[in-house]
């Protein structure tokens, strides 16, 4: 089990509040992933990544995440199922300077895709299955695909269970596998798009009572750009 959260701000007036809004979202997912956590924030200077072992609350406090500003944040709380608990195995996986992937689920054919990527000179640095998906998407983007197309390629090539949230400097995209048994909920207002594994991670956001709440359908890419 793992927890995923993401916040994509549409209203620039909220950008100074990014960290303050985001930290409660990540902390709410502690019960889904208490062993390690990671996050990426995006601002005018680019993407900033923090990954560490421990409780989300402690990691956010140690790095003063609540004080961060920016236009987008993505985070993950991990309950490891298939590889070690280290900061390197924590999500997000960030194979490009502005690309972050967080994953809830498990891929069953990641070893064969890992070998295919290796033959093309694309090496993974961990044995984590999610890193393979991140590097696969990075390859697609490097070869010219846009993020939505790259996510659709994941559906064709990867087998297993997944809810994915993938962000670039300008895009925010969610995808679930055909059985959609890993949870996801998306809330959208005029000010932001927020995504989480469970609703209660969104419960503190401003205007959530009037947000449009959607449970993403299986095999459909939901994407927003700025």
């Amino acid at each position, binding site marked *: 089990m793992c927890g995923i959260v993401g916040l994509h701000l549409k209203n620039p007036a909220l950008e100074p509040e990014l960290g303050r809004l985001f930290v409660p979202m990540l902390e709410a997912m502690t019960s889904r992933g208490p062993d390690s956590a990671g996050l990426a924030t995006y601002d005018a200077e680019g993407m900033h990544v923090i990954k560490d072992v421990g409780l989300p609350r402690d990691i956010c406090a140690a790095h003063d995440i609540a004080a961060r500003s920016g236009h987008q944040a993505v985070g993950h709380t991990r309950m490891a199922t298939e590889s070690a608990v280290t900061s390197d195995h924590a999500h997000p996986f960030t194979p490009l300077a502005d690309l972050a992937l967080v994953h809830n689920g498990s891929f069953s054919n990641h070893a064969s895709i890992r070998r295919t990527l290796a033959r093309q000179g694309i090496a993974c640095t961990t044995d984590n299955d999610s890193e393979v998906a991140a590097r696969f998407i990075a390859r697609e983007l490097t070869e010219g695909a846009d993020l939505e197309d790259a996510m659709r390629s994941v559906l064709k090539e990867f087998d297993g269970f997944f809810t994915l949230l993938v962000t670039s400097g300008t895009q925010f995209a969610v995808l679930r596998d055909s059985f959609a048994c890993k*949870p996801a909920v998306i809330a959208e207002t005029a000010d932001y798009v927020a995504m989480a594994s469970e609703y*209660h*991670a*969104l*419960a*503190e956001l401003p205007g959530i009572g009037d947000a449009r*709440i959607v*449970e993403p359908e299986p095999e459909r890419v939901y994407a927003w750009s700025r």
Partner: protein
Amino acid sequence: MVALNGSSVQELMKVDLASTSVRELNAELHAPTARRYEVHNPRGAEAIAVGLRHAIEVEIHGPAGYYCAGMNMLADVVVHGSVGTGVAENMMSGSVRVRGDASQSAGATGHGGLLVVEGSASMRCGISMKGIDIVVGGDVGPMSAFMAQAGRLVVCGDAGDGLGDSIYEARLYVRGRVGSPGADCVEKEMRDEHVAELGQLLADAGLPHDPGEFRRFGSARRLYHFAAHNSAAY
């Protein structure tokens, strides 16, 4: 079953989950000292009002998380908001009404009682239902009523792909479009008794639709009977 002592039981208790834990709330609901409860500030918390065994009324004002009103027996629970995965799972009796939408597996494995979702329900609504009645005002997602054994599922909107896959003897009524029926699930004739029971379910749910607008789906009974000529395949 413990009977409520009318004279020593207060009429209404209000519980604020901003200052009371779900565990404290559920402990009170398991040994109730009131007949009616109002729960405020649920903020999507999991397992609210789970395992109730008394004929009490519980109104939850706001969105509830996973497994809300799971295993309910006798109680009447209303959620003024949306609910997460597994609302009223394994309900035995009583009723659960959701005024918003429901996430996956609403009413899963339920044995009895009535679940009403006034909005839409997501995937696997009524999976493995065993006697519960479920009425959904909007749509249901793919794989709803998967392996449904008994009870009735009423869908006033559309049903997603794989409706009633591997169904046993539950009866499914759909007013809108069916993405595709699942394995061994077929459309069946609406006879007078089906119109009558559907009319009663819609009335119980407080929905105004004409039973004549619905189609009935059920088991073709090709899948779950052992056939001697297939014995070589086993």
